[in-house]
């Protein structure tokens, strides 16, 4: 194995089995890729191609049917604080305040009170949640909720941050704001980030590399390197010719998959 690669996914195949009908759905087929320490990698692909499945497998919330996943050269056997996850549905607990939500992971790991408060305060500042510390989730907007979820995950300082369409439930404006914030934030972080999205723009702007997946059963179609280094990316990058070419390439690649998926569905129905 190559030195420095932190996540190593090898020939992973996964299918779901309906426990009553015994029908199976092949979600992932022979997926392999590696992600380096500190890299920001995006995954895009048509709906239902197994992106969430892949993240759940890396998080250790499920075991792959076949193949192997290693993080830091150790096989993944279950979920752990070294791999934090941010969910599309926010998943912050309604019965905890913003502060207590963010400190939750630290509480679980038994970090002493003072240390914990210090870390939480730092992330509240970093993520722009000042003034909301004692609010309950229902009092927050969607964007704020997702900020809390992100802060909660980052507070544990996991080696790997897995983000499953974290901005999908937000409106376009908030989405763009959070995207730009995340881009800036990522420059201050050393965590490895694996980011699933439907949005080609998001993937192109955020990812150092983008993994394009095929329609279901999901396979790695191609892995594309971003021509612009992360440090130099900002909103103006969107107008950079090299970036536009790169973005269009991704767009075409995903669209081809979506179209065949739709076509096949049509054929199946008729």
């Amino acid at each position, binding site marked *: 194995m190559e030195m420095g690669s932190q996540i190593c996914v090898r020939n992973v195949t996964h299918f779901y089995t309906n426990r009553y009908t015994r029908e199976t759905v092949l979600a992932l087929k022979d997926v392999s890729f590696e992600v380096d320490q500190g890299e920001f990698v995006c995954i895009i692909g048509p709906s239902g191609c197994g992106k969430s499945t892949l993240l*759940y497998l890396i*998080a250790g*919330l499920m075991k792959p049917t076949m193949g192997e996943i290693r993080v830091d050269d150790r096989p993944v056997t*279950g*979920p*752990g*604080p*070294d*791999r*934090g*996850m941010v*969910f599309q*549905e926010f*998943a*912050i*607990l*309604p*019965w905890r305040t913003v502060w207590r939500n963010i400190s*939750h*992971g630290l509480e*679980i*790991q038994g970090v002493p009170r003072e240390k914990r408060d210090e870390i939480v305060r730092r992330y509240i500042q970093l993520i722009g949640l000042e003034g909301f510390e004692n609010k*309950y*989730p*229902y*009092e927050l907007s969607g964007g704020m909720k997702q900020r809390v*979820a992100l802060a*909660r*995950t980052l507070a*544990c300082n996991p080696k790997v941050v*897995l983000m499953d369409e974290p901005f999908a439930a937000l409106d376009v404006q908030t989405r763009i704001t959070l995207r730009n914030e995340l881009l800036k934030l990522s420059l201050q972080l050393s965590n490895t980030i694996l980011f699933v999205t439907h949005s080609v723009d998001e993937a192109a702007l955020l990812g150092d590399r983008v993994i394009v997946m095929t329609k279901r059963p999901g396979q790695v179609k191609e892995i594309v390197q971003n021509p612009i280094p992360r440090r130099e990316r900002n909103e103006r990058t969107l107008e950079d010719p090299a970036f536009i070419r790169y973005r269009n390439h991704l767009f075409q690649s995903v669209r081809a998959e979506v179209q065949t998926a739709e076509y096949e569905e049509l054929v199946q129905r008729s």
Partner: protein
Amino acid sequence: MAGTGLAEAVRQAKGIEWKRLEFLEAIVYNVGPYFLLLLVWEGVRVFLQPDPRFVPDVREVIGELIYILKNGILVDYLSRSLLRIALAAGVAIPIGILIGFGIGLNEAIANTLLPLIRFFNSIPAIAWLPLFIIWLGFKDQTIILDASYGLFFPVVFNTIVGVQTVPRVFRDAVRTLGGSWWHVVTDVILPGSLPAVLIGIRTGFAYAWRGLIAAEMIVAANGLGYLIFKAQSMILADRIIAGMILIGLTWSFLDYFLLQPLEEGTIRRWGLVQR
């Protein structure tokens, strides 16, 4: 109006007009219903002229209430009924929650216990009463067991629903934070199922209270159920009605001061109840 903005005008109008209106409304809606009830009651008495032994007038009922308060029956019987329901709650709620958790969390437990619990739920507590009497005699234990039986099932079923409807993603989230199974139970499942558990407790209390009154009629020599049942054989309609009012009021107090605040204190604060 000159010099004051629109907002100020609105505020002023609200301050004066609304206050008066709200006060009127409060009277109509809070006192009106009971006034109407008294009106109907007196109307029946005056116009239909029923046998006064069977339909007493309001003053007699109030007089009877004061009478049983003075001679100590009221306090004695009320406290006995309350003690019984408290004991029943002490038995049924912990067991119900525990079993509900077991079923909600573990499929093997669910498969073995759920069908049985469904079946026993379909047998009302009151049907068991004759058998409980044979087992335990005409004693307090019989009444408490009967009330517990009624309280138990709503708690179990609601706890199960509560456990099962905690969004899966919350469990996953805690596990990706490095939480163990135990963390998931204490930090996610317990608080997450609390609203449903509280609903179960509230529903269960309603069943248990009815069961208690019925059981007291048949089994006891004291308590509110006995009060009205005994009064019936002595043809004391005023005492029966006084007793019924007591039973209704006691329930309303229990619900309002004990069960509802429980809800407000936790789940409302978390915004889990929108209404």
